[in-house]
């Protein structure tokens, strides 16, 4: 196929695409793949696949145990990946815990808080994580289930109350909808909505949380992969993101926690390699991040994530963001032209990233997605794990297009044509 690749943000998308073998395949009877589902999972460049393979072919061993040469090399590679990710996110290496994914990272905090709340046999510094009846956990109505259900569960286990900021008609967190009080112990929110694309006013939310002494937990799943993020400068206490959404492998994610907090926080998953000393009567635990990495961890995946960070850094996250901004503009401009299309989320580029969700009057999102799929266009349909947000807008499902550094303007422009075809097919045009 002769795809014109309109340069955006000075990015050579054509040569980037050469790094992603999957993008050259066809789907559904020979249609070139148009992958607009990077918000669900991104594709991985050869550099990431090669790094994983090279690690497994030359250095593979269980990390942080054993004294043989391979164990040393594997541990060095694993920790080097942590250091790279630390530089990439403006954190210190010991502030980053490898987890399975962001979901596990958020659960780690929620369960550590649950453990703290039991108040038996724990060090006194864990008290700051304890919650109980009368305390409040605050989230927002636009959260992904991964940053909602763990807090619902923490409330259920401890008797704390869940409260939330509502969402405005144009898809922003409504800062006037909730007044934080001293009862609030946690404020957890998404940096960028996975449905609406809107970017949260992090500074203001952190200020409000700090004013009442609450901890902040940032779901950075849709921000770290798509824009420059400096976690230290943002001032959040915790943040979580997943490797597979940032050109890296699945099965690896990162939890960021400020040093003094991770130092004070009791473990979630316990077992091997997270200990300091074990006796039959009881155990003491290693300093972070090891305290939170029980068992033999994912290793080639961590190394692969390090390679993904190298890949993104070489492009520059400012460039990645600018590129996606152009794509978002094209998506909004072309979809707006299609009759019956309603954008769910900000219709401008202000404080907005590249997730564009919409509904089509008279055609269910599933059916739109099927027509797009028939044309080789892969989008997400459904509630995108943000069911309460969809209910807030009075809809069951949306179509979501999302991008990454390899997405072209021409691909995004095909979306509107596909939606027109869907309207025609279902007889609403």
């Amino acid at each position, binding site marked *: 196929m002769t795809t014109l690749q309109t340069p955006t943000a000075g990015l050579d998308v054509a040569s980037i695409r050469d790094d992603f073998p999957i993008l050259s395949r066809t789907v559904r*009877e020979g249609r070139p793949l148009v992958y607009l589902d990077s918000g669900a999972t991104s594709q991985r460049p050869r550099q990431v696949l090669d790094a994983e393979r090279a690690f497994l072919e030359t250095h593979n061993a269980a990390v942080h145990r054993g004294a043989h040469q391979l164990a040393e090399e594997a541990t060095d590679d694993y920790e080097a990946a942590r250091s790279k990710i630390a530089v990439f996110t403006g954190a210190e290496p010991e502030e980053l815990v490898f987890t399975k994914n962001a979901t596990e990272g958020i659960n780690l905090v929620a369960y550590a808080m649950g453990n703290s709340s039991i108040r038996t046999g724990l060090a006194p510094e864990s008290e700051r994580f304890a919650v109980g009846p009368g305390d409040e956990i605050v989230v927002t109505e636009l959260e992904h289930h991964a940053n909602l259900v763990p807090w619902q569960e923490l409330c259920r286990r401890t008797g704390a109350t869940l409260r939330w900021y509502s969402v405005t008609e144009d898809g922003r967190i409504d800062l006037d909808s909730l007044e934080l009080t001293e009862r609030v112990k946690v404020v957890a929110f998404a940096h960028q909505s996975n449905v609406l694309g809107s970017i949260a006013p992090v500074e203001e939310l952190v200020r409000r949380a700090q004013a009442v002494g609450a901890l902040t937990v940032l779901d950075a799943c849709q921000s770290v992969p798509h824009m420059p993020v400096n976690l230290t400068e943002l001032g959040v206490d915790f943040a979580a993101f997943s490797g597979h959404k940032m050109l890296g492998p699945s099965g690896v994610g990162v939890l960021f926690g400020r040093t003094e907090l991770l130092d004070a926080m009791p473990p979630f998953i316990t077992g091997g390699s997270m200990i300091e000393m074990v006796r039959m009567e009881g155990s003491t635990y290693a300093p972070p991040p090891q305290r939170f990495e029980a068992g033999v961890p994912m290793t080639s995946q961590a190394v692969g994530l390090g390679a993904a960070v190298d890949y993104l850094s070489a492009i520059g996250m400012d460039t990645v963001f600018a590129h996606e901004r152009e794509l978002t503009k094209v998506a909004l401009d072309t979809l707006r032209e299609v009759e019956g299309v309603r954008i769910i989320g900000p219709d401008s580029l202000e404080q907005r990233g590249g997730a564009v969700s919409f509904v089509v009057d008279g055609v269910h999102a*599933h059916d739109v997605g*099927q027509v797009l799929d028939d044309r080789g266009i892969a989008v997400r349909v*459904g*509630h995108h794990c943000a*069911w309460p947000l*969809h209910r807030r807008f009075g809809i*069951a*499902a949306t179509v979501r297009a999302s991008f990454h550094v390899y997405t072209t303007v021409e691909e995004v422009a095909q979306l509107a044509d596909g939606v027109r075809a869907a309207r025609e097919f279902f007889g609403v045009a």
Partner: protein
Amino acid sequence: MKLEQMYQEIILDHYRQPHGAGLREPYDAETHHINPTCGDEVTLRVKLGDDPAHPTVQDVSYESLGCSISQASTSVLTDLVVGKSVEEAFRILESFQEMAQSRGKVPGDEEIIGDGIAFAGVSKYPARVKCALLGWMAFKDAVARVKEEA
């Protein structure tokens, strides 16, 4: 083209003009089924005949929110099972389910499932099988509830 194979005219007709839609009284049991991956929902009521020795499906009424496949298949369900014995209705259900879950391997028996064979194409799309079965599973569940209560 594959799209037409999946969205056969019969499906589109049922989608545009669903049969038996709306919730009606009287009924013996009501179920609410959800497709958790897409948020589609159906509320379905069943009224069985009065002879417990030979139970029949007197009415199936429903309200649903969903894609063309789930709406049309619930519409087809009402055509196929209303007026039949429960035993016969379940035979139809099993036949429809077998076809829907066959990934295109079972073409479906028109003698048994009538318009239901239009959904054979859907079975090739694993992500849509749940859509095709949403109303049917709600019906199965509703009948089971009537039996439990009896």
